[in-house]
């Protein structure tokens, strides 16, 4: 036991299946899908017309979490998710900022492409009449807008960082915050990921790589990780911010922890901007290193929250990697993909999934991989198909793998 042991004590979730930890968690336990037809803009001419959007009144609800109306007006959806998720997370942890030395609180936020839709709209406006461009466009689109707006609106004066490693950003942000606590630089951190990537350019770009599911006729069935008929991921928006807290701080205030974060690891495959090493070697290596760092035995791992994107490549490589790392134990481990329900929130996904994994460890419940209906002989492990299960979880890992070969694995335990 060490005063710098790190615990997850608060969770703020903003997802296509629910705003707030409780609504999102309950809907995930019921295996609900948040994938629908795109309403943020006219997608009728696009090859992909489906996405995981937040509920339509999200921005209205977010207003109440800002210091002043002008602070709210100076942000786009991207930062609005951040400020609201951070506030919900602190509230969930039972932390009153007026009782804290906010110089010892860190903010670490991951994002892959930030507020791309706003950027596209501004470029379109530029070609129509630049005199009508948003005067605050730069302060709104800068990638650190979310972390900085969290600091400004909550008056948090410790280190504030933005991490960008594609779809592993949220996981990396949590990992970096963990390190800052272990190094004694901060007592607690608001760490997570935020993404608002639903835009014509993102859809066209990912579609040209063959990464998106074109299953426009059945939005709720489109994200189907590990299923034989999967044909790509579904792009989604959202955010997850957790409170990471040192044992010393947690015990001093007498708070509650969902689980301990035992350690993490990250590496680079140095192979491709888009594809994982097919054998799963890079993915496997990072799980091995993370478990070693954490001092957790492979036999203690009862649950893996997979990256599980629903692309052909990821799901096979990740399965191979798990088999390589866990050998004969692989078939006893429960695996599931949060993305089957909420789609792929890119840079936010790692953080949302760490939050879901923490809730799984706390409640001894595993959310399902929905739409897993057809057996793929190359994906032959227990992916918790379609129905949530109860299971004692001693330790769990959450995988995130990002474009550019950015791998990240986070280890949690009771």
């Amino acid at each position, binding site marked *: 036991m060490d005063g710098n042991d790190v615990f997850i004590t608060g969770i703020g979730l903003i997802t296509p299946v629910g705003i707030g930890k409780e609504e999102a968690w309950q809907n995930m336990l019921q295996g609900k899908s948040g994938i629908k037809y795109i309403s943020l803009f006219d997608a009728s001419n696009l090859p992909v017309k489906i996405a995981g959007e937040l509920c339509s009144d999200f921005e209205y609800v977010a207003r109440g979490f800002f210091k*002043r*109306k*002008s602070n709210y*007006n*100076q942000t786009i959806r991207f930062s609005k998710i951040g400020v609201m998720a951070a506030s919900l997370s602190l509230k969930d942890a039972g932390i009153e900022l007026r009782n804290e030395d906010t110089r010892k609180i860190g903010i670490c936020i991951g994002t892959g492409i930030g507020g791309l839709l706003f950027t596209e709209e501004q470029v379109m406006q530029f070609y129509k009449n630049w*005199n*009508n461009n*948003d*005067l*605050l466009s730069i*302060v709104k689109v800068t990638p650190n807008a979310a972390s900085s707006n969290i600091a400004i609106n909550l008056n948090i004066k410790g280190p504030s960082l933005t991490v960008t490693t594609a779809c592993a950003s949220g996981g990396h942000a949590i990992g970096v915050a963990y390190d800052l606590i272990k190094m004694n630089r901060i007592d607690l951190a608001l760490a997570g990921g935020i993404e608002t990537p639903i835009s014509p350019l993102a859809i066209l770009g990912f579609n040209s790589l063959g990464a998106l599911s074109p299953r426009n006729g059945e939005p709720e069935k489109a994200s189907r990780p590990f299923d034989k008929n999967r044909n790509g991921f579904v792009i989604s928006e959202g955010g997850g911010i957790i409170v990471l807290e040192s044992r010393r701080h947690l015990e001093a205030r007498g708070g509650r922890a969902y689980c301990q974060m035992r350690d993490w690891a990250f590496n680079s495959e140095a192979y491709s901007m888009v594809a994982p090493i097919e054998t799963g070697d890079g993915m496997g290596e990072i799980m091995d290193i993370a478990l070693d760092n954490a001092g957790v035995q492979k036999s203690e791992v009862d649950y893996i929250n997979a990256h599980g994107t629903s692309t052909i490549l990821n799901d096979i490589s990740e399965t191979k990697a798990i088999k390589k790392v866990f050998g004969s134990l692989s078939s006893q481990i429960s695996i599931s993909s949060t993305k089957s329900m909420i789609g792929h929130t890119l840079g936010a996904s790692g953080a949302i999934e760490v939050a879901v994994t923490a809730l799984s460890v706390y409640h001894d419940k595993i959310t399902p991989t929905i739409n897993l209906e057809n057996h793929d002989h190359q994906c032959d492990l227990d992916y918790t198909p379609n129905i949530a299960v109860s299971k004692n979880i001693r330790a769990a890992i959450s995988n995130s793998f990002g474009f550019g070969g950015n791998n990240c694995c986070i280890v949690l335990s009771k």
Partner: protein
Amino acid sequence: MENIGERIKTILADEIEVDINNIHDDSKLVDLGVDSLTFLEMVAEFKDEFNVNISINEISEYLKDHPIRTAGELIKYVEEVILKETKT
């Protein structure tokens, strides 16, 4: 222009969440909590509200010689812009 002055004050009060009765001509914008970003936001709102087409470059040029420090100076400037646009 009296009515326009009141409309400007209403936008200002709404933006910075201050009671309109606490905004006087000699109220310093900095004391009301108006920073450069809030100022730009209000410019956008004025453009919408009064249907004027002034560019941010023109505003910057004006501010070099005529710094706007009070609510009264702000109202005067917006009124001038509206008047100029009406004439042209």
